[in-house]
């Protein structure tokens, strides 16, 4: 390295220290006390500094936006998970509320029924190809003292009777089953008759046969258990007359009954465990 290069390097090194020191001095001074040298420095460095800061702001904002988006994604994931959890909890609470209402209804029903009852939960439903319930099973059985023939009711009315018990479970014969027979009274006129399930797979219907052909009944009349034979307590609602067949001749009058119980929504039922006393409950 020759002498001039050494001098040049030394000058540059000195400048590298002095230039920032001068700029720093100018920046640290009160703006009202700037000298002509400070003002000249700002005049010269201003445009350069402006461009540099503009570029710096651009880079910083891009990176900060990216970091912000990363944060937003994290927040979104967190909120989505929170939302899913709350939805699950809400579903559980809704189910609980529904169950509480059902139990409250059953409690009211139990108080109205003048007989001993047992609450049971529906644990299985047999579904037809057309999505109709054709049989149900409950979570009480032999160990709870159940036996075949005990009436099963829900808040809406008569569900059926215990068909058979096995261990801790019991099958229920629904009123819509072809094997089901119930003595009934209908409407204000207390027309007597009996219903049997039609066993149709596409709809819930029972056939009703009146004892007398001249009984005054009409569509919409309520159908209750008669209590005849002491199999079912009297006055438990079964359903409504939905059709009366025109039959000018013959000994009997026939029609159809739509059950008042919605079998698809059954979750809790009451089983009447003692013999019927005097019931005018439903």
């Amino acid at each position: 390295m020759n002498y001039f290069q050494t001098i040049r390097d030394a000058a540059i090194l000195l400048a590298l220290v002095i230039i920032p020191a001068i700029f720093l001095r100018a920046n640290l001074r009160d703006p009202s006390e700037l000298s002509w040298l400070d003002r000249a420095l700002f005049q010269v460095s201003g445009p350069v500094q402006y461009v540099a800061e503009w570029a710096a702001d651009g880079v910083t904002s891009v990176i900060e936006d990216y970091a912000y988006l990363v944060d937003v994604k994290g927040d979104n994931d967190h909120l989505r998970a929170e939302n899913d959890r709350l939805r699950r909890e809400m579903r559980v609470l809704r189910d609980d509320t529904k169950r509480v209402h059902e139990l409250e209804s059953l409690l009211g029903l139990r108080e109205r029924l003048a007989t001993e009852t047992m609450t049971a939960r529906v644990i299985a439903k047999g579904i037809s190809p057309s999505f109709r319930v054709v049989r149900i099973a409950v979570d009480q059985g032999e160990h709870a003292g159940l036996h075949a023939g005990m009436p099963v009711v829900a808040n809406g009315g008569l569900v059926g009777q215990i068909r058979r018990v096995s261990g801790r479970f019991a099958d229920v014969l629904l009123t819509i089953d072809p094997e089901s027979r119930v003595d009934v009274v209908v409407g204000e006129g207390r027309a007597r008759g009996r219903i049997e399930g039609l066993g149709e797979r596409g709809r819930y219907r029972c056939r009703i046969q009146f004892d007398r052909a001249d009984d005054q009944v009409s569509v919409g009349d309520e159908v209750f258990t008669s209590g005849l034979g002491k199999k079912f307590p009297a006055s438990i609602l079964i359903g409504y007359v939905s059709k009366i067949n025109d039959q000018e001749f013959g000994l009997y009058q026939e029609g159809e009954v739509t059950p008042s119980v919605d079998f698809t929504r059954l979750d809790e039922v009451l089983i009447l465990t003692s013999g019927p006393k005097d019931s005018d409950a439903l």
Partner: protein
Amino acid sequence: MHGGRGSIIIVLVAFAMLLTQSVFSRVLAPYPFSPYLGLPFVFALGTAPGVRILRGAATAFAIGYLYDLFTGNPLGLHTFVFVVGYFTAWLVGYLLSFRGIAFEMVLTFVLTALLGGLVEVIRGFTPGGMAWSGVTMTIALFASAFATALVAPILFAVVRWIDPESERAPT
């Protein structure tokens, strides 16, 4: 690699680390353990036998200028301090012959604490400058110097990796 190109890459890496630190500072280095990630690059250049003093000072100038630009400090503050830091490291490297991780960490710790103190002293002259208590400032300085010393060996190694020529003494 040619020295000038190596310096440009070192400046860009220091700049990238500054940006990363500013964006993820909460996660990477909570206050007061915020390292001065630019300084170890300057010290590494100062103590590297193969780096010409002019190139090292210019690189320190550039890194300091970017610090000023992106940290919103008065223009010239970090530029001045980084150039001073470079000359101090060069002097230490000239006077002391031993090297190694321990040297890099001790050098970084001492110089970062001193230069951090210099930054705070200069800031004290700023109109309406910060009025920290002595204890708070001391804790912040030493915590920052400690954090910088911890990462220093990695950054020294980064400089050697970017610019292998820096390790070769001029013939």
